[in-house]
């Protein structure tokens, strides 16, 4: 009897171990597939152009000497320092404006009982259905009239008006989880809603703000549509906009000057450099990232 149980349990444990090993094997395989393109990029960025153009076999270890100057060459081929500066100004200003106004609006919708609140919040959600391309032309004409083309303003000012329905929704959901007793206590102490927003709500929505700031950052950092339409003067270009022209110049080169003119090593080193800040922020804030996706995703 006892041996029977022991045999049964060892068979069970054996199956369990097998299953665990299989889980790891599949997970590692998927991980390798997903990380492989990034490794290919990193390693390619350190190779010479000649090598890259002749390589037909996968080789993730660049031969010595590693071509670190690819990074400098690609960076100085166009005014990328200027583009980086523009990108940072636009990103920081929109991030700040988006966080400030989205949290204000979210607080209003989550806590204050004003006439028409439900209808207006329904409209907020409805605006998520409107593709930005529908409003693009009139908005372009508006910014043209205002003389804002080729300034940072078209990319920043709209973010100071609630930042977008997605962020309002994300933050409202989070504010709803804060106990209202905290508000009431502050109210009894004589706080106005402005005081409650500053002293009760803001200090308590850190994780949601972190999640929102990641998405806001990625949005501004990667945006191509806006810079393409509003910024025609290369003094105001962002990194994304600058890289695009870089690629085009190369394509034109390619038609005129043949394949050898094609600067594939610069592609890879520029790609690496533009990706590094994103990668860094992701690794630092990963937890908030995932929770942000989940909150915004599930409650929808």
């Amino acid at each position: 009897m006892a041996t029977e149980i022991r045999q049964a349990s060892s068979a069970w444990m054996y199956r369990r171990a097998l299953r665990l090993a299989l889980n790891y094997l599949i997970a590692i395989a998927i991980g390798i597939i997903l990380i492989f393109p990034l490794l290919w990029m990193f390693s390619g960025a350190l190779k010479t152009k000649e090598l890259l153009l002749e390589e037909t076999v996968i080789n993730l270890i660049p031969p010595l000497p590693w071509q670190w100057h690819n990074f400098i060459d690609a960076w100085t081929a166009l005014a990328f320092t200027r583009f980086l500066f523009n990108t940072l100004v636009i990103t920081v200003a929109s991030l700040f404006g988006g966080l400030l106004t989205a949290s204000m609006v979210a607080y209003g919708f989550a806590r204050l009982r004003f006439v028409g609140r439900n209808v207006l919040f329904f409209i907020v959600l409805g605006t998520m259905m409107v593709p930005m391309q529908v409003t693009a032309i009139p908005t372009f004409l508006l910014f043209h009239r205002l003389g804002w083309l080729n300034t940072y303003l078209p990319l920043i000012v709209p973010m100071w008006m609630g930042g977008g329905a997605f962020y309002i929704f994300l933050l409202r959901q989070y504010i709803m989880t804060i106990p209202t007793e905290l508000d009431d206590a502050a109210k009894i102490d004589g706080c106005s809603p402005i005081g409650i927003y500053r002293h009760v709500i803001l200090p308590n929505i850190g994780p949601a703000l972190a999640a929102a700031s990641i998405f806001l950052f990625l949005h501004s950092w990667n945006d191509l549509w806006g810079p393409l339409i509003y910024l025609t003067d290369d003094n105001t270009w962002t990194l994304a906009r600058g890289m695009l022209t870089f690629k085009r110049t190369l394509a034109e080169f390619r038609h005129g000057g043949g394949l050898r003119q094609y600067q594939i090593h610069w592609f890879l080193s520029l790609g690496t450099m533009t990706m590094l800040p994103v990668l860094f922020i992701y690794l630092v804030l990963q937890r908030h990232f995932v929770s942000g996706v989940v909150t915004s995703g599930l409650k929808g």
Partner: protein
Amino acid sequence: MRPSRFRLPPGEAWRENFYGYLFISPWILGFVIFLAGPLLVSLGLMFTEYAGFKKITYVGLANFEELIKFDIRFIGSLRVSAVFAFWTVSLAIIISLAMALLLNQRFRGHTFFRGLFYLPAAVSGVAMTFVWAAMFEKDYGMFNQILRIFDFDRVAWLTSIEWALPSYIIMRLYGVGHYMVIMLAGLQSIPDDLHEAAKVDGASGLALFRHITLPLLSPTIFFLMIVGMIGSLQVFTEGFMLTQGGPARSTLFYVLYLYIVAFTERRFGYASVLAWLLFLIIMSLTLLQFWLARRWVHYESQEA
């Protein structure tokens, strides 16, 4: 009947109204200036010919006539976007479900793998698109290097009519981690005791998945379908950067075509028609999904 609400004293009610509208005023401003206003203007622009800066001509229904009768590029772009959206969303849902089921096993290190699987979705963007261009190169790109290992012929990924669109689908699927994270959260919201109860009743793994996991996960899948479809109908950056619609318009995505009409050809009137049509398509798809969902989506509360 709405449940009776707690009534505030008059002074208090005024105060709440005042502060409420004060706090949401940025959104109201943005809504009027950047959404409602432009929507109305582009509604009007549909009946005009307008190149931007000088004169604007009323053309009646000519733009609509052109759209229906003469525009081959429009029909083509609609087809390209539909095919792209269909394959991207269905493949992404299947793959992300498999990945989420794997990570839901909660083995040691599953959070590490979750972070790893999401990483590509985080780094996607202009920089990554740039790198895709190199990876899809015919002579020395990563994909053809891999094919060579298995002795397959080279594929002209972005430069052949039959492979260009599938290349974009592969690109999109690289960001499948985004779907996975949401799918995983959906799985984790399924109470464990349901599985336990079914196991006690002798249900096999497959039956468990089919009769418990899948029905309870259907709201999540449904949500991902809507969001994924709307997102992939609006794809622009990759197409604009890599192929600009070619070869032979096989990757002329709808929004890419819209951009070309509006900002390259400067036909704001006609582009407004295209934009409004996109809006209507997205809206009706969303409504259709909601309607279909009533038939097969299981919501917890309906059972009670």
